[in-house]
């Protein structure tokens, strides 16, 4: 999986591309979250548009990212969930935990 980090105003956006699965994508996501958190990001939006597959390890990393951000007083939200990612978050009721937005613009504006 590739992670691209960019800024939109004071919102840090992580564009994820590929598979968030055990052994590679999950580690890449963990490292990227720790990096932006260590740089002091307070508003983080994860753009999931190009995520092709996610497994329980990837879901676990999203949950860890959420709790890491929350514990540091930051906000972490999700945008552009592919249908199958929505499904997999829904069946474990995690869709109720995350703030999810249909577009990047909606996600960015939700922080203000």
């Amino acid at each position: 999986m590739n992670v691209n980090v960019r800024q939109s105003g004071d919102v840090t956006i992580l564009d994820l591309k590929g598979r968030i699965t055990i052994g590679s994508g999950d580690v890449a996501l963990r490292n990227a979250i720790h990096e932006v958190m260590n740089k002091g990001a307070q508003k983080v939006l994860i753009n999931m548009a190009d995520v092709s597959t996610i497994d329980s390890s990837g879901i676990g990393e999203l949950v860890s990212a959420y709790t890491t951000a929350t514990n540091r007083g930051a906000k972490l939200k999700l945008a552009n969930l592919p249908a199958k990612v929505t499904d997999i978050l829904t069946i474990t009721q995690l869709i109720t935990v995350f703030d999810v937005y249909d577009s990047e613009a909606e996600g960015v504006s939700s922080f203000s």
Partner: protein
Amino acid sequence: MPEEYRFHLAIGSRFENIELVQVVLRDCLERLGMEEDTRHWVDVAVREALANAIKHGNEQNPSKQVHVDLAVEEDELVIRVEDEGGGFDPAHLGDPLAPENLLRPNGRGIFYMKSFMDTIQYGSGPGGGTLVTLRKRIPGAKTDSSQDQEEGTE
């Protein structure tokens, strides 16, 4: 038994080897005529079984293997994943939907397997490792008897 759908693979306990199984599995599911959505969820369930076998069963010891068998039995796709670990008791699993577990980073793999397959069954393999059997009904699949009848009319 439609032998063209049957395969056996033995992989070393490395996560990257999951992709090797996925390539063969996807090809097989496509040839079985499964719909794209079903193929995706079976793919995810098998991925979870393989990840558990590598991580928990074989503890990522690359000299230990994970054995994967796929077969069509009656009208079901049957996938068996067996590790060379010390066995596993699924009775000790927590409920990932319980409020106290909702924000745990792990503990969802078997729940996903159960969600995406018709049945999953845990047992011990001949070597004492964990053997998980995943079953999914194949709509419109040729059964053994219908296959025999077709062959008989040719």
